[in-house]
């Protein structure tokens, strides 16, 4: 390696190299904008075609932090129905240790279970059936507590963020179906 290579800046490449790299730059930035951009018939169709490339390029993200509206939240819970048909309600997200370094991985998982029950429901059911084996569980019922909007005045008047939350039963899966 001569002095020029090491110290005097980029080694000049043939022109076609810069043209090819420029093409890659345009594609990459187009991918960034496509993944993060709005939705429309045109953009959705292009996105579908580009999806594998966006994933492979690690740029398939929309970056919508806490948007468009950040709250109120949905708090996953579940019930264990035992062999005699009795339901035992459990907090799920609320029972997590906030100071567990994996806290946000668990909250992400729980939200994924209630948002995509077909994909993540069976695995979660198997895990919960094992966890509550002492209850001889028959099925797991997944529920969610929908937080109510709480204004600053509500909090100052003594309400908590879980006040007036409405619990909705989402879906259930029998333990025997998931072979825990």
């Amino acid at each position, binding site marked *: 390696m001569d002095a020029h290579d090491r110290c005097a800046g980029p080694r000049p490449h043939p022109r076609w190299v*810069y043209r090819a790299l420029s093409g890659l730059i345009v594609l990459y930035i187009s991918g960034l904008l496509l993944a993060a951009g709005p939705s429309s018939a045109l953009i959705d169709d292009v996105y579908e075609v580009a999806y594998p490339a966006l994933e492979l390029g690690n740029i398939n993200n929309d970056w919508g932090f806490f948007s*468009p509206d950040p709250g109120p939240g949905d708090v996953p819970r579940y019930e264990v129905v035992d062999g005699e048909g009795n339901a035992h309600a459990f907090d799920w997200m609320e029972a997590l240790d906030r100071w567990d*370094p994996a806290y946000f991985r668990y909250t992400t*998982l729980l939200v994924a279970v209630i948002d995509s029950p077909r994909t993540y429901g069976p695995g979660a059911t198997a895990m919960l059936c094992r966890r509550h084996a002492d209850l001889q569980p028959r099925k797991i019922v997944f529920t969610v507590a929908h937080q109510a909007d709480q204004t600053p005045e509500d909090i*100052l008047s003594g309400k908590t963020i879980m006040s007036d939350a409405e619990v909705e039963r989402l879906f259930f899966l029998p333990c025997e179906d998931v072979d825990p």
Partner: protein
Amino acid sequence: MSALRDFAAAWHRFWFETADTRPLELLRIGVGLTLLLSYLSVAQNVGAFYTEEGWMPLAQTPSIEEEWSTLSVLFLARTPEAAWALYVATLAAAVAYVLGWRSNVAKVVLFVGHYSFTRRAPAVAYGVDDLCSNLLFLQLFVPMGLAFSLDARRRASQACAPWRTTSRSMALRLSQVQMAVIMGFAGLEKLQGEDWWDGMGIWFAMTDWEFNFFPLAPFAAAPYLLNVLSYGSVLFELAYPALIWGRRTRTPLLLVAFALHLGVAVVMGLWLFSLAMVIAHLAFAPAAWLDRLGPADCAAPPQNSKAGSTPASSRRSTDIEGQRDGGSTDMPRASAR
């Protein structure tokens, strides 16, 4: 024709001739550190997240594998021992990458490990993983460990390190553009939300159970503060893609970004994500900050002197292109005629 030629020259300078690519090395250290902490934080959950005994056994979540059948080592080797082996290798690679020891091997191992874990268990991956994947992917294709690293120290016998390569310039620019896109779209998306428009976005984010780490009463008693913080966040995110390129606006903008992410970490508990964002902002680290971390060596452009004629240690590095010559921005611009 002349305008086109000027644009082509400016494009070339912006993308391929960045004078100082040391911020890439800050990103290396930062991404390695974030992933190290991230994977240490799941040490007690390797079995629960990444094996057949966990929350997402492939036998019961086949769609994960169907979509990514060739893109995770853990689809090929499904035993707990394989998950642990990959886990240990990923941790070791993260440590090596932070230190800059065999950086170009470490980054490949780290990427393969991180990619495999996030694809094996997409339901436990979140913003930290996405951001690190983005940055690490760009670093895969360029030589790393050329500054602030054990690799650089090992190569100290060479007068100058070949930092200024075309690929590193391009990778740094893409990392910067990526941050601009992230911040810009974060702001644009918020504009669609009533909560942010009404100046209460911060409040409703804080009152979500998942992110409620901080007592609410002090904020509830200060509604104007909530409005200022909400509008300020949106304005900052919208302004970032435009103002981060300016020499005079960059440092204040970076300091606001650090304060914002510190606030998010403390109030909402998102400390790892905040760390990743702070690190990603360092793609725009000014030269003055970099000079405090280590010698400029070959970062400076030749400046009419013959290569190697100026002692490396006596050179001052430039900031990103356009700053040494008095330019106020390093966005693409027409060359001076």
